[in-house]
């Protein structure tokens, strides 16, 4: 039985800089996996390779036993991987519910002609998409904010709205890029609860996070990158005790 997501020997360079070098790891179905490392370690680049925003120079990425490393981003979403962004990327001038509906896009069909003629199936599809969007808003705790413009939401709410948009796409794997970034302690606490609830829905989670207490509590498997290379991998306890990881985060003591 192969893993849900298999990253194998992935390398990506920008000009002379090798951002990700020969990185391999697995994400098992149903798990919460953390990708950590100091700034510039290549975490977000790795995410962008998985989601098709970048093309790997070498290596393969397989999702549910399908090669996805040559697929375009929207196709990868359709295949079942949804994401959030490090610097929240919402549709600022649109309402919260419209933002979530973006996630429904790849699961619905009606086109321009359907919009002009409005056949009954199109009306039904719209209604079902709206119901689902409202449901996802409630799921992340934004019930009352459906009609608010994304730009008017508090920062923590914007992060949760992004998660709702990702969940609306019926993903099997959700990739969260620093979900707790800019959140206060209480919001982070709620986020850990939310991650648990997402997992209960049977959705696998891969996340980048700098908040170590969140990573250690929420993740059962951690992959550590430094200078684009994987330096360690394992359950939280072993990562915390790993001398190379400690060295990467704290630096070596000069003797």
């Amino acid at each position, binding site marked *: 039985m192969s893993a849900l997501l298999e990253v194998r020997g992935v390398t990506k360079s920008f000009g002379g800089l090798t951002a990700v070098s020969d990185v391999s790891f697995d994400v098992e179905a149903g798990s919460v996996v953390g990708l950590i490392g100091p700034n510039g370690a290549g975490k977000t680049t790795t995410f962008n390779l998985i989601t098709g925003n970048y093309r790997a120079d070498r290596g393969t990425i397989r999702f549910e036993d399908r090669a996805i490393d040559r697929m375009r981003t929207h196709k990868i979403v359709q295949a079942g991987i949804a994401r959030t962004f490090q610097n929240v990327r919402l549709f600022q001038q649109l309402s919260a519910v419209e933002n979530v509906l973006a996630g429904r896009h790849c699961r619905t069909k009606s086109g*321009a002609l359907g*919009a*002009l003629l409005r056949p009954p199936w199109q009306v039904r599809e719209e209604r079902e998409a709206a119901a689902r969007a*409202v449901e996802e808003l409630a799921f992340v705790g934004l019930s009352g904010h459906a*009609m608010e413009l994304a730009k008017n939401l508090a920062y923590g709410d914007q992060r949760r709205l992004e998660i709702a948009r990702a969940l609306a796409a019926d993903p099997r794997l959700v990739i969260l890029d620093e979900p707790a970034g800019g959140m206060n302690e209480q919001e982070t606490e709620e986020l850990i609860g939310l991650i648990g609830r997402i997992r209960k829905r049977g959705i696998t989670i891969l996340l980048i996070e700098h908040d170590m207490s969140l990573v250690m509590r929420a993740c059962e498997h951690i992959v550590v990158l430094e200078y684009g290379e994987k330096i360690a991998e394992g359950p939280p306890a072993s990562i915390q005790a790993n001398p190379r990881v400690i060295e990467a985060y704290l630096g070596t003591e000069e003797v």
Partner: protein
Amino acid sequence: MAARTTTRLAIGYALAVAFIAAAPLFLDAYWLDVLNSVGLYVLLALSLNLILGDAGLFNMGHAAFYAVGAYTTAILSTRFQIPILWTLPASAVVAALFATLVARPVVHLRGDYLLVVTIGLGEIVRIALVNDVFGLTGGANGIFGIARPTVFGLKIRRPHEFLYLIWAFVAVTVLLFHRLEQSRFGRALNYLREDPVAAEGSGVNTARYRLLAFALGAAWAGMTGTLYAAKMTIISPESFGFWESVVLFLMVILGGSGSIPGVILGATLVVVLPEVFRGFASARMLVFGLVMMVMMVVRPQGLLAFRILRFKESDVRRAGASQ
């Protein structure tokens, strides 16, 4: 709030329809012709709004698609004696195909880059027409002798007859475009405008929607070209120059990018105001220019930026209730 906006909009449209319907009673032929111009520009501005306002693609060569439609009709009418209104779908299809073809290699360009490319496109089309491409376009003189349209056996030739033809087309267009913006398709265009990376990352095929925006906008501009050719009976390249594209761009931005009522108002003002100020002779364009500058400083979002919430509160409530 949303409900009130919708009501106000319905009242606005009802007043506009009443005004247009009764216009022949109190306006002379000259002003009826101005109204016909307004109608054509409203159509063009609305078609550009799909591309520029809804999808956020900076297109300053929209007159090219208008020209393709007008010339399609002119050629079909003068060479093959095809009745004018039958050429409407042909103009739409030819303009849409043309747009798809030329936009495909450049449509991924962002903002200002796309703007420059589309300016080039508009000029190429104009120059091609002047140089009589394929011996079909009649060069700088254009094509004359385009037949008058016939509706249910009635030959349309006088200004007030054109008024009803053009504005009926406007009414249908407004209805359809409102439906379009309140749909999955319309939302996809908005996602594209707001953040293409997030749109693609949410599962929207952004490349496809960029092309669809161009194709649909061009199709409508093409059909407007048909109406224009029918009204003028003579068309020539000078009607489809760079200035035309600039004016259309202006109407959309001035009225309220992405807002259908805003764009209608923008088109109306840009056509009517210079007529009203005709008394000032050459100073009128100066005044007009100043008004534009002040507008953009004071109200950069456009005159009627209020947008009909694509998704209304009632939709959300109904969705919540059906769970």
